[in-house]
């Protein structure tokens, strides 16, 4: 759908506005990239948006992975563990439920789905404190389960997969598989799952990133340093560095730690753009 070029002036103006906005959105990334090549003195003593003479990125990286007994690596592993287990688990659970709501007839289905729609708007942050108190009565706080189990619940994912399964899994193929003698789980696995794949990838991606980025839940649930994900860990470093109660300031370590924490996200973001945009548009706006 090529449209004839409008006035050159308009084109220049619109591109100038876009360039200005792009500079705004990219400024913090540029700063982070430059700052991660500086040591602590360079961070405070040189121009913020350009490289100082010394290139200290590798020094900073080795400092990052050895600081506090190498706890950053543990945080990185924890973030990966929480997001992979929660992502895969939540997607599997949402796929089963979404498919059942769309394609299986069972008593109570409509009531349960109405309950889901009714509860989808309960704000997550209002649930964190009571969930913590319940978990502590069950003796589960300060374990990996305290972060993983609540992250497995994804009502919006169930809603999205129900919508998608409803439109994209053909009833005739389900019937044909049943007549061939397949049991219901086999029908789900061999017919429904392949048809739901694009939406499954979207839900997986969103749950993984949401868990990787989550802060409030692990902040409340965990007090053991070794169980922190990156977000909570970096915050404790930042807090003690700014309040100045942890010996020498380690701002350069925090900067390079922030860089390492977002690299996997930026890579996933660029490689899987299609699915990101899909997720924003399937459920919300049909």
């Amino acid at each position: 759908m090529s449209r004839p070029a409008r006035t050159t002036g308009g084109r220049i103006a619109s591109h100038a506005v876009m360039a200005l906005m792009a500079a705004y959105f990219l400024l913090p990334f540029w700063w982070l990239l430059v700052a991660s090549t500086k040591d602590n003195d360079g961070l405070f003593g040189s121009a913020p948006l350009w490289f100082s003479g010394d290139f200290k990125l590798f020094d900073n990286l080795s400092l990052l992975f050895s600081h506090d007994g190498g706890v950053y690596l543990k945080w990185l592993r924890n973030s990966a563990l929480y997001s992979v287990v929660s992502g895969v688990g939540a997607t599997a659970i949402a796929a089963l439920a979404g498919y059942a709501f769309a394609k299986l007839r069972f008593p109570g289905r409509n009531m349960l789905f109405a309950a889901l729609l009714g509860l989808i708007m309960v704000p997550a942050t209002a649930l964190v404190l009571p969930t913590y108190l319940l978990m502590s009565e069950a003796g589960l706080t300060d374990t990996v389960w305290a972060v993983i189990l609540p992250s497995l619940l994804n009502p919006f994912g169930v809603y999205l997969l129900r919508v998608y399964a409803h439109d994209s899994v053909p009833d005739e193929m389900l019937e044909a598989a049943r007549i061939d003698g397949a049991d219901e789980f086999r029908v789900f696995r061999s017919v429904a799952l392949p048809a739901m794949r694009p939406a499954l990838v979207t839900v997986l991606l969103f749950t993984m990133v949401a868990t990787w980025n989550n802060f409030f839940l692990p902040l409340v649930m965990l007090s053991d340093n070794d169980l922190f994900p990156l977000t909570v860990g970096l915050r404790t470093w930042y807090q003690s560095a700014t309040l100045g109660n942890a010996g020498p300031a380690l701002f350069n370590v925090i900067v390079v730690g922030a860089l390492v924490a977002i690299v996997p996200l930026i890579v996933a973001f660029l490689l899987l753009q299609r699915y990101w945009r899909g997720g924003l548009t399937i459920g919300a706006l049909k």
Partner: protein
Amino acid sequence: MTNLARRARVGRQAVAGWLFVAPFTVLLVFFLLLPMLYAAKLSLYRSTLVEGEVFAWLDNYRQALGDPEFRRGVVRVLVFGAVQTPVMIGIALVAALLIDAATSRFSRVFRLAAFVPYAVPVVIGTLMWGFLYSPNTGPLSSVIDVDFLSSGTVLYSLGNIVTWQWAGYNMIVLYAALQGVPREVYESARMDGAGAVQTALRIKTPMISAAIVLVTIFTIIGTLQFFTEPLILQPLNPGAITNSYTPNVYAYHQAFSYQQYNYSAAISFLLGVVVFVGSYIFLFVTRKRSALR
């Protein structure tokens, strides 16, 4: 197929259906319904030194509604939402209209640049802006002579962080809505001699009003729950970002700094009810126009 075989199959499907939704239902009960009821229960009790936990009716709620710190926090997020929401949605709308009108390679690069902050954890986005605001490590205070972290300015600085992080997300949603508008509508506008700016303002914007309403609701919901950004920036100026800066920050500190679990539960529950009821009223009122069914 015989009647009996059909009935057996219907029975099998019912069992399978229940098995399929069972894991989700269990999670829904344990991590949504139970915490909600538990918060409601806690909020009706009070812990006292002499008698332990005593039933206190609505005392915690009465205390919250009369608590000047809580009220200031509520007013702050409302003011914040009233200023930040239109600014951010405005930026997102302009960006969406621009990439919808331009088809150059640069507009695709721009789309990526605007969307990428959304992929960054809020904690890290806030850390980066914290460094940028600081006069020691950031460039901003050498451009404009402003203390970005003073008690008078920090709310705007927080608003900028939220705008930076979420404008691109909203832009993508609005852009998707623009793509859904039939092209003939624009063609006929151009035939009538409408310019690009006029088409954008008079025709495209009204056509996607449902999507604009939707992203506005989601933004307001997020604003009311404002938590991570103020908590991260708090050590930079604890005098400006107090322990009661927003309702969620207040609830967090009530529980973890002062062990006031009952009061904290009342604040959480109150906030949850306001957001929940508010978003349903909004969705119901705009039901015909918004697409979330």
